[in-house]
């Protein structure tokens, strides 16, 4: 990255004498393809996460447009029923696991270490591993498009027995299972890393109650991932056992209970929706104070309500199963718990409004998206509470009303916040500004397109249009709303396209952004843009909640402190940077091949035909183990960069 960086291998003191003998090739390229495949820098990993996530946002978007095209008019035949099933399955799976979650990971990776004053995450190579396993899982999931078996077609929730060998004999479900399984590994590995980073690598003075809210939400989200994903991992293991080894977990004819799948799935699935929205809450809580020029109103309440949402998220899963006949007591309990979740959620909205209250509001692009978020998310929250009333939900379940609800929270909520976040941190990441004018045009098209698409769905749902239906009859009264909705969808797509064209243009040609472009409050903005490889030349000391704001008003004190620290760090031999590594990538290649073996390679009940499957799987497993082993043997050494030389080259 930096031509002036002088790096050298650290001296091997007595304790490290052994490492030398291992003769492992350390990649050192700082540019070119190899540097990206072996990078362990959290900022580069974040950029790759973002790149892939935006790519899949467009893949998922295309699938959505095909769905809306098919539903635009009654008795349409653009898609067959089966193609329609693959479209909505892949659309849901792609948007949740390959677009929104990784885009959140991109933010976590880039922003969180900077906000807490860290040089990197706690385990840089594990971080690279999370990235590559995400890519591997995404490829496995989408492999079906290029194979004769086709893409997965049993819905993103994969309800039993739709996924059983009997109803779905081909490989599409195997690919879905293995793809999700690998994505689970990726998410859990990433989250463990973030948890350790936030708890252990905070700059001096950065107490937990001084953490920026975005970092807090990263922490809570990471805990949700670590605790919720095992449920779906086991569900998928059981499903895979059913499919490969004829076990009976979800096999009703042998006593298995398909309803168990629903429980396991939603024990994961409901926390998952908070995994998708809590980062958005974090971003809004950064944007609001900056553009209202006031500290966040009620910081402790925002943090604790986030934690409360995270906790309650585990207690409400059965509200997705009101119509499965759980009995009145269970139904009432889950309805109450669900309504309780609306309380901390509502509290947050009041906090944001309280932040704006009496502030000097600057209506820049990120703020516009934040306001759009509040409005859209509130509508989604209201329909959520409507579902929470079990008798009402009995009517709404599996209708377009539910579709309207979760798109208001997922697009109007998560995606809006993230688009706002992209505009907000843009100057820090790319050192340039996005065009405010084109950004606004994109915002209004997205805002209008989104509402035109999804608002009519409330009425369609209440008028009885079921979800997951590939077409409908012309005389049910659904024609006009459907047509409006489809037109809105294409308008929404146009808006998103304009947004990302503006984004890329700004990245390449935008006006140069000054340091601290928005006059912001949190630590990451104290850095020059683009951010140097080692983040902080001198680790800052934190004195207040809005750390940068404090620094800006206590400049002298901070300067003295920095000088003292610089001396100290130099005495330690400079800034310690981790080496790049091949092995996270190698291990991932192994995992990819192994899951290819399990999911894609053919087999039958005749043992002889198992050979290719087992062989491919074992080869993949061996490569994976080799990758892990070399990874552990190469050790966690690194090189040093000296602050003084660095400071000169940056000032």
């Amino acid at each position, binding site marked *: 990255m930096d031509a002036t960086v002088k790096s050298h291998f650290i001296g091997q003191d007595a*304790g*490290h*004498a*052994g*490492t030398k003998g291992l003769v492992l090739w350390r990649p050192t390229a700082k540019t070119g393809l190899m540097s990206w495949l072996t990078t362990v820098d959290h900022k580069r990993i974040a950029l790759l996460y973002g790149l892939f996530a935006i790519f899949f946002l467009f893949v998922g978007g295309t699938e959505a447009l095909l769905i809306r095209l098919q539903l635009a008019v009654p008795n349409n035949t653009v898609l067959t029923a089966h193609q329609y099933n693959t479209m909505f399955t892949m659309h849901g799976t792609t948007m949740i696991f390959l677009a929104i979650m990784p885009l959140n990971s991109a933010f976590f990776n880039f922003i969180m270490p900077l906000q807490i004053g860290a*040089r990197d995450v*706690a*385990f*840089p*190579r*594990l971080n690279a*591993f999370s990235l590559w396993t995400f890519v591997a899982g995404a490829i496995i999931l989408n492999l079906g498009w290029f194979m004769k078996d086709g893409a997965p077609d049993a819905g993103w929730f994969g309800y039993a027995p739709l996924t059983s060998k009997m109803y779905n004999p081909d490989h599409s479900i195997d690919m879905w299972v293995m793809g999700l399984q690998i994505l689970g590994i990726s998410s*859990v*590995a990433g989250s*463990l*890393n973030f*948890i*350790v980073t936030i*708890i*252990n*690598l*905070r700059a001096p003075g*950065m107490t937990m109650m001084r953490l920026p809210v975005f970092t807090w939400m990263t922490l809570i989200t990471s805990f949700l991932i*670590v*605790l*919720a*994903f*095992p*449920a779906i*991992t*086991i*569900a998928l*293991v*059981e499903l895979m*056992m059913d499919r490969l*080894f*004829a*076990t*009976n*977990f979800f096999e009703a004819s*042998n*006593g*298995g*209970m398909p309803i*168990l799948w629903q429980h*396991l799935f939603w*024990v994961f699935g409901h926390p998952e929706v908070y995994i998708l929205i809590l980062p958005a809450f974090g971003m809004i809580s950064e944007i609001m104070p900056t553009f209202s020029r006031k500290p966040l109103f009620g910081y402790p309440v925002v943090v604790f309500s986030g934690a409360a949402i995270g906790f309650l998220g585990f207690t409400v899963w059965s509200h997705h199963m009101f119509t499965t006949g759980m009995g009145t007591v269970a139904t009432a309990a889950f309805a109450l718990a669900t309504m309780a979740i609306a309380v901390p959620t509502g509290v947050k909205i009041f906090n944001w409004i309280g932040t704006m209250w009496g502030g000097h509001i600057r209506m820049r692009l990120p703020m516009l998206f934040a306001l759009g978020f509040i409005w859209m998310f509130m509508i989604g929250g209201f329909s959520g509470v409507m579902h929470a009333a079990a008798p009402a939900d009995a009517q709404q379940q599996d209708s377009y009303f539910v579709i309207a609800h979760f798109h208001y929270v997922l697009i109007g909520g998560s995606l809006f916040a993230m688009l706002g976040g992209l505009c907000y941190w843009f100057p820090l990441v790319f050192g340039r500004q996005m065009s405010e004018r084109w950004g606004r045009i994109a915002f209004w098209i997205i805002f209008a397109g989104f509402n035109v698409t999804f608002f009519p769905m409330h009425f369609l749902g209440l008028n009885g249009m079921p979800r997951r239906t590939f077409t409908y009859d012309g005389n049910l009264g659904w024609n006009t709303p459907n047509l409006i909705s489809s037109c809105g969808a294409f308008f929404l797509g146009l808006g998103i396209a304009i947004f990302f064209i503006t984004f890329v243009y700004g990245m390449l040609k935008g006006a140069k952004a000054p340091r601290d472009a928005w006059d912001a409050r949190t630590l990451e903005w104290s850095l020059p843009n683009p951010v140097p490889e080692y983040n902080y030349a001198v680790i800052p000391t934190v004195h207040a909640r809005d750390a940068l704001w404090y620094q800006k008003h206590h400049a002298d004190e901070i300067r003295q402190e920095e000088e003292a620290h610089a001396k100290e760090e130099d005495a330690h031999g400079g800034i*310690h940077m*981790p080496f790049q590594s091949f092995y996270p990538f190698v*291990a991932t290649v192994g995992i990819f091949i192994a899951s290819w073996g399990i999911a894609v390679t053919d087999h039958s009940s005749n043992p002889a035909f198992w050979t290719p499957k087992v062989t491919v799987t074992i080869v993949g497993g061996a490569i994976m183990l080799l990758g*892990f*082993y070399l*990874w*552990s*043997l*190469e*050790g*966690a*050494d*690194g090189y040093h960069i000296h602050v003084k030389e660095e400071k000169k080259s940056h000032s």
Partner: protein
Amino acid sequence: MSSPAATVAIDHHHDHTTSTGIPNKKLLLWAFLASDCMFFGTLISTHLIYRLHPVPGGPDPRHIFSIELTSFSTFILLMSSLMMALAVNAIQKGNVRSMRASLLTTAFFGAIFVGCQVYEFHHFVMEKHLTISNSLFGSTFYTLTGTHGIHVSIGILWLMSMYFFSFKKGFSERNAVDVDSMGLYWHFVDIVWIVIFTAVYLLEFI
């Protein structure tokens, strides 16, 4: 800081300056074990739910289990935890030799446990005709205990890697955190087994 450990995912160049004083590696393991709790929790729940709704005419576990053998292997596994604790204690005092002996014993006891499980599975399939696919009980039983067996096997691999690694020059009490983290994993796997032993085996006999 210290040398590479024979385990994945151990980068800890920050260890000397963590905010909490807990080494990163250990915190990582704690968080991972929290996740693993949910993992086993889900498997055990599945098993228990299906035991509460047994299929009529299904196999009777009391006729299948040989509780003496399983009690023995459980005892051995518990003893291995003791050995693991001794290993950690030894390395914390810088006694590499004693640590190696304890590590080997731990791995050996672990291997006896896995051996018993292999025998048990073989016996159940061959003599008691309980397979993974011919009954719901078989499906949940083998999946749950098999998953635990895989955890133990990974632990043995880890122990052995650490054992061989300890012969490299410079291995000293500075590696205590590596051994300690591995110990956490091993104890966790043991505790999980006690829960499984109680919920899957002993509950059948009350």
